[in-house]
């Protein structure tokens, strides 16, 4: 029955689907043709129009040449900004490694570190093979890079007279006519974002996951699951077109990835932790939870600080343009939300449990960052602080709900930080966006406004994006983990879990000095 439905769905997709492809633009592998006088048109409020340029460059050839240089510099600033931000986001991988390893036990430190390390390599290769093509193959270029138009092929199905973009079909192996400076820049920046998603479940599934099934998971999420949802929001897919097709605000808007990156990672983390089951000794026979303290709190907190540092690249870099000065508002909102998240979590824990629990404060800090990731460009500082503070409280409630009601063991709070607050972040955009930014976002005229500033349809678009993510990611990842378990067992044998995964799964003990062994002969 299930098979028939799937088959039927596939046939419908085949029948109605078509690949839209415009006339083939030429790739620019050397970069000398990217950034020209054309990029000066409409650059600022007083910049010349295309007609001005055509008329004037005849009369003033030198001005025409100078405009070329200015256009090139303008695009160059954007390239440099996005590259540096991409490097910052890449460094978040170090933050994740330290945070997750610090919050878990010493006997599994090598294993937890190894997963966080290898997801970078596995994820990047998977993304290069097909993830990038599926996500960005039909994006149609990035204006602030003055190019990338070779990514012009989106698979679209037409239902009830509306186009639904499903996935891109260009850019596999960064080849096939996509050997282009702008495309490579987009790849680098999008790849490090994708990697953030992929590394989130390593936290919720830490201390009991086999390395073999982890590797399979790494390819699956980076080649298929993440790219599909990301295409729908950032690659020109159907969620981004909700505004154009159905008049819902600017479509599902997610500036830097509360839903695309964090919810996807968070709900994959939840599905994984549910299929994998709790660590031995986490729950007593009567179902009450035991505390399993992390082995290195300073390491974990350092990791959180590195994450916050990388987050400036994550959010402010998502302007995709160093010339878009809104990036200052984005960066400031980002840090304000993290402060509010940490402070709210501290007050909550102090009130309810008598001590300002550091590990929960650290989670609250990250929760504020996750929540501000979608709305960071569209809100003012007061909204940013409110969004962050709500995130810090939500985080605490969620951690206890997951542990005490759902009975799911999430050692580092990955689902509560990324899943719950990712959802809160995109919804918060639909509430607090104040209409000062986002002119023409997703092809809709006007700025982005939330419910509190007069556009309830924007909030509705955010709800659709959120529900879609929960259903799509959670279901597909839950089924994937269940099926994978049949072929490659997810869980290590109990005796290995008790002794520590380091020696059995990765062969190296993180802290050999803790053991009596011969090292000097």
């Amino acid at each position: 029955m299930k098979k028939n439905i799937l088959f039927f769905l596939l046939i419908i997709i085949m029948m109605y689907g078509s690949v839209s492809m415009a006339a083939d633009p030429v790739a620019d592998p050397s970069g000398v043709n990217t950034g020209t006088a054309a990029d000066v048109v409409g650059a600022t409020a007083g910049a010349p129009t295309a007609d001005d340029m055509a008329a004037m460059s005849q009369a003033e050839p030198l001005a025409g040449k100078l405009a070329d240089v200015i256009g090139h510099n303008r695009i160059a600033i954007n390239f440099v900004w996005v590259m540096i931000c991409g490097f910052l986001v890449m460094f978040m991988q170090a933050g994740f490694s330290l945070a997750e390893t610090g919050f878990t036990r010493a006997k599994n430190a090598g294993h937890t570190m190894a997963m966080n390390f290898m997801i970078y390599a596995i994820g990047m290769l998977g993304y290069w093979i097909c993830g990038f093509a599926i996500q960005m193959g039909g994006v149609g270029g990035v204006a602030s890079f003055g190019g990338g138009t070779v990514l012009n092929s989106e698979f679209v199905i037409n239902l009830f007279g509306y186009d639904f973009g499903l996935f891109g079909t260009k850019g596999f192996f960064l080849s096939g006519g996509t050997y282009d400076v702008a495309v490579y820049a987009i790849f680098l920046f999008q790849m490090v974002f994708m990697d953030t998603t992929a590394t989130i479940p390593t936290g919720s599934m830490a201390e009991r996951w086999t390395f073999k099934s982890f590797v399979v998971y790494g390819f699956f999420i980076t080649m298929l699951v993440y790219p599909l949802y990301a295409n729908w929001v950032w690659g020109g897919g159907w969620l981004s077109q909700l505004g154009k097709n159905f008049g819902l605000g600017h479509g599902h808007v997610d500036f830097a990835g509360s839903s695309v990156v964090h919810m996807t990672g968070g709900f994959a983390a939840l599905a994984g932790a549910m299929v994998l089951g709790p660590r031995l000794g986490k729950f007593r026979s009567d179902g009450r939870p035991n505390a399993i303290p992390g082995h290195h709190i300073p390491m974990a907190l350092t990791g959180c600080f590195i994450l916050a540092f990388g987050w400036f690249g994550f959010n402010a870099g998502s302007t995709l343009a160093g010339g878009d000065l809104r990036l200052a508002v984005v960066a400031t909102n980002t840090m304000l939300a993290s402060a509010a998240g940490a402070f709210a979590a501290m007050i909550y824990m102090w009130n309810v449990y008598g001590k300002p629990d550091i590990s929960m404060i650290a989670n609250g800090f990250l929760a504020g960052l996750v929540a501000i990731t979608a709305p960071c460009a569209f809100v003012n500082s007061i909204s940013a602080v409110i969004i962050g503070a709500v995130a810090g409280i939500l985080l605490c409630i969620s951690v206890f709900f997951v542990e005490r009601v759902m009975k799911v063991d999430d050692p580092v709070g990955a689902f509560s930080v990324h899943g719950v607050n990712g959802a809160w972040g995109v919804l918060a955009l639909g509430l607090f966006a104040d209409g000062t930014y986002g002119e023409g976002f997703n092809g809709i005229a006007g700025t982005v406004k939330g419910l509190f500033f007069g556009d309830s349809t924007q909030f509705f678009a955010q709800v659709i994006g959120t529900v879609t993510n929960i259903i799509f990611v959670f279901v597909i990842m839950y089924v994937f983990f269940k099926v994978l378990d049949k072929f490659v067992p997810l869980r290590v044998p109990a005796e290995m879990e008790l002794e520590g995964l380091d020696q059995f799964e990765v062969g190296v003990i993180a802290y050999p000095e803790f053991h009596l062994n011969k090292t000097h002969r």
Partner: protein
Amino acid sequence: MKMILGVIKPFKVDDVKDALTSININGMTISEVKGFGRQKGHKEIYRGTEYQTDFVPKVEIKIAVADDQADEVIQTIINAAKTGKIGDGKIFILPIEDVIRIRTGEKGEAAI
């Protein structure tokens, strides 16, 4: 000869060592140990869940002394290690059968 075996609070190690060297005790061995007595560990809280730490960190200090020095050493350790609060530790006194200095082969009190 006596073996004085003190189990003390870790942050008192330097005070005890300084006090002992000031009365001309020239050697000791210490090790980091864990244990509990009547204080029975303590409760901690991690991510909102209480847990019991049964074995509390202590430092064990071992000093071999001549019989006539024993009382002075014991009193010095007590003076230096005492805070008056629960968990200050204990001192055990054991007889020593013999002592041998490995380098010279000296025996008895000369080897201390």
